[in-house]
């Protein structure tokens, strides 16, 4: 049991914080999965347009790991398969039936699961198409069933801006969460580490895992930061990570024999009104989520949080690993003499105090880049928001130089882009640090394959 206190980092004070209550939204008509969004995976479709598909049945598999199949997040008719450039499958959309057919399997009692053997759990995760919920580090990709992870990590804390409050969500689902943890704990010879927020909470009753606490600003809730502080990833180590809400999905599958893709999703950001937590599901249609909640017409809708999410549209769907929709207003406002203008905390948000005003209330960010890309001037803004014993500047330079050996020595295998996303936010040179880290990882992946 470790008690982690994070000092470096920053909680972005962005307007449109979702209300701390779970509401219902109008019923969904479509759900979707984006096969090309999974990294280092070669998707091969198993369905055709117009076919019927049951909830939880496989949509496609990975040619490199044929056992790993992606479940359909809904039962109904396959409405559309969208191809992108070079025939990559960008999106598979399912139109939901009012009575969804659901694939059913054996059920287990809540106290039975921890007694199962590793092979039994693994077989079940494969036949129920649950493996895509498990990601492995290094590389932050879908886990390989052939590998036995050193440890498994679950973060039950969200610190990303506008993301769901996991304590609010999980306290209603402790049985399912525990069932999922029991199943996952069988998959490793090491430990199952669960990190929760400091202070008394429902989580203290969790068993069959190692509980850790974390406190501090974003990115304290990122599982990568927690792994770094609990047991860092050494070269040749493989650890698995699972999102807390996905642990519940796995747990529900063991308990009920069916895939229940329910997910609590937040809608928030400066471009929303009445943002809140909503009962929704995996790959839900964004239109349903944001209906009547948009403020103004010129908005960028992001599937995921504002730091790491993907640009989407009202017609889009939630990403597989997203549990949040952020809406940021577009702005093309060019302020006169912006570089000398002293500005005010109302018009400029600065992490470095360059605008010399302490911001107290929430700030209405826009999609403005607030500057153009420039060569690096290392004034220490990256280091101030990266709570890891990693030298971001040197690592960045190693990636630019394509020096794989140095990248690995400097700890690139411990990171994925979300861990350094705040560096990009803070960077005065407007460099995409997280994206650069991913470039480095791509290079290493290509080199090892």
């Amino acid at each position, binding site marked *: 049991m470790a008690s982690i206190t994070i000092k470096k980092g920053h909680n*972005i004070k*962005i307007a449109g914080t979702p209300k701390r209550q779970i509401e219902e939204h109008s019923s969904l008509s479509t759900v979707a999965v984006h096969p090309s969004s999974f990294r280092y995976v070669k998707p091969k479709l198993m369905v055709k347009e117009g076919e019927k598909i049951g909830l939880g049945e496989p949509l496609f598999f990975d040619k490199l790991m044929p056992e790993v199949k992606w479940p359909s997040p809904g039962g109904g008719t396959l409405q559309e398969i969208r191809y992108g450039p070079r025939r990559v499958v960008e999106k598979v959309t399912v139109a939901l039936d009012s009575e969804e057919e659901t694939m059913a399997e054996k059920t287990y009692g809540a106290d039975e699961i921890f007694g199962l053997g590793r092979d039994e759990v693994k077989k079940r995760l494969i036949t129920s198409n649950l493996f895509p919920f498990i990601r492995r580090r290094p590389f932050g990709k879908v886990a390989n069933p052939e590998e036995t992870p050193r440890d498994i990590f679950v973060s039950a804390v969200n610190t990303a801006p506008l993301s769901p409050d996991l304590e609010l969500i999980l306290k209603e689902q402790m049985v399912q969460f525990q069932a999922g943890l029991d199943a996952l704990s069988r998959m490793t010879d090491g430990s199952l580490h669960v990190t929760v927020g400091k202070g008394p909470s429902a989580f203290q009753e969790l068993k069959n895992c190692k509980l850790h606490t974390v406190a501090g600003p974003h990115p304290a809730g990122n599982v990568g930061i927690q792994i770094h502080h609990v047991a*860092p990833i*050494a070269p040749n*180590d493989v650890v698995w990570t699972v999102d807390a809400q996905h642990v519940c999905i796995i747990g529900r599958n063991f308990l009920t024999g069916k895939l229940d893709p329910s997910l609590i999703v937040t809608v928030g950001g400066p471009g929303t009104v009445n943002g809140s937590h909503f009962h929704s599901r995996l790959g839900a249609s964004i239109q349903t989520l944001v209906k009547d909640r948009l403020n103004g017409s010129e908005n960028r809708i*992001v599937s995921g949080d*504002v*730091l*790491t*999410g*993907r*640009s989407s549209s009202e017609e889009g769907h939630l990403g597989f690993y997203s549990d949040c929709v952020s809406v*940021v207003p*577009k702005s*093309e406002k*060019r*302020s*006169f*003499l*912006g*570089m*000398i203008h002293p500005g005010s905390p109302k018009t*400029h*948000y*600065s*992490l*470095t*105090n*360059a605008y*010399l005003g302490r911001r107290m209330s929430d700030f209405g960010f*826009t*999609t*403005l*880049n*607030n*500057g*153009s890309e*420039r*060569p*690096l001037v*290392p*004034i*220490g803004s990256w280091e*101030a928001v990266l709570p890891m*014993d990693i*030298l971001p*500047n*040197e690592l960045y330079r190693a990636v630019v130089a394509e020096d794989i050996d140095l990248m690995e*020595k*400097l*700890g690139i295998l411990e990171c994925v*882009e979300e861990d350094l996303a*705040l560096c990009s*936010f*803070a960077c*005065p*040179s*407007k460099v995409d640090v*997280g*994206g650069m880290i991913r470039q480095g990882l791509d290079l290493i992946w290509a080199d090892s394959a």
Partner: protein
Amino acid sequence: MKFLSKILKSVKPKFDEGGRLERLYPVFEATETIFFSTDEQTSKGPHIRDSVDIKRVMILVVIALIPCYLFGAINIGYLNAQALGISRGWVENFLFGMKQISPLIIVTFASGAFWELLFPVIRKHEVTESFLVTCALIPLVMPPELPLWMVAVGTSFGVVLGKEVFGGTGMNIFNPALTARAFVYFAYPVAMSGDKVWAIGPDGYSGATALSIPAAATNADSVALLSAFTQFDYSWWNMFVGFIPGSVGETSKIMILLGAGLLLITKIASWRTMVGAVLGLLGTAALFNLLSPYSSNSMLTIPPHYHLVMGGFLFGTVFMATEPVTGAHTDRGRWIYGIMIGFLTVVIRSINPAYPEGVMLAILLMNAFAPVIDYFVVKGNIKRRKARYAQ
């Protein structure tokens, strides 16, 4: 404002791809973004960005230098009045000083901007704003009466050979402003050293700087020498306030500290470098004080707190050592880098009889060694990380 925006919009097509002045696009872009902040949008990755950009960072450094300019102008007038034996008011002193340094500023910015615009046009990238800081620093580290052609040659040397040949902002090894000063110092030593250039007086007027007084004597106590000096008031307090001869911006430590405050509040300069340099200077000076009985060198007797207010040490530490590109890039490295600058400043001042001022060379020397410091800090980081895996 709308009028300006209209003009910019109307001439833009000429600079766009295929336009008649396409090659000069960087010049247009630079002009446009001086007046109006850019409307560039975030793409993927973080969809929101902090408001601080390099333009803002650079302009804040320039703002931090303004107090030094204001005091510098007053001081030039004050010293001139003293040399002529007349009395003048503050405003007159300031105007006299401004008359002296305005040409310096104009020539520096003109020659700096010329090179800074030429290179992006040839290399086809956007103009970086760091030349604003370089050009704002150069007049402050020059003597007030330096011939203007020397200023132009020095600025050109600093910008081109100190920065652009390495690839421009972010890639340079040496601080361009200091490179400019070092060039003028070694190329035209008569105009940059000695006792005659630091205060404007009648022909042949000469006044020793605080550092050259103990340098010229042997077996003497430096504080006694300084307080016995009558031409200028070299008490600690007056050296701190700044009514002493020297380069334009380096004399008033109060104004430098004001600038330092702004740079630290806005987190633009590294406090580690600043504190390191001051500690290095104080420590080395204290050590030399202990050694002074065994030597005839009077420089060794300068007390640590005198070192702090003499010469250009504080100006160099606050505005030049903290330059993020040419200094150490790691936090630990910044400590070592700062301490070494303080140490070398005292060593060069005290032990090298040719250069009574040492901070310029100390910073340039440490610029050269900063990558080596970082190399060892990185090695230490790799080693520490390895040790953690073993657990």
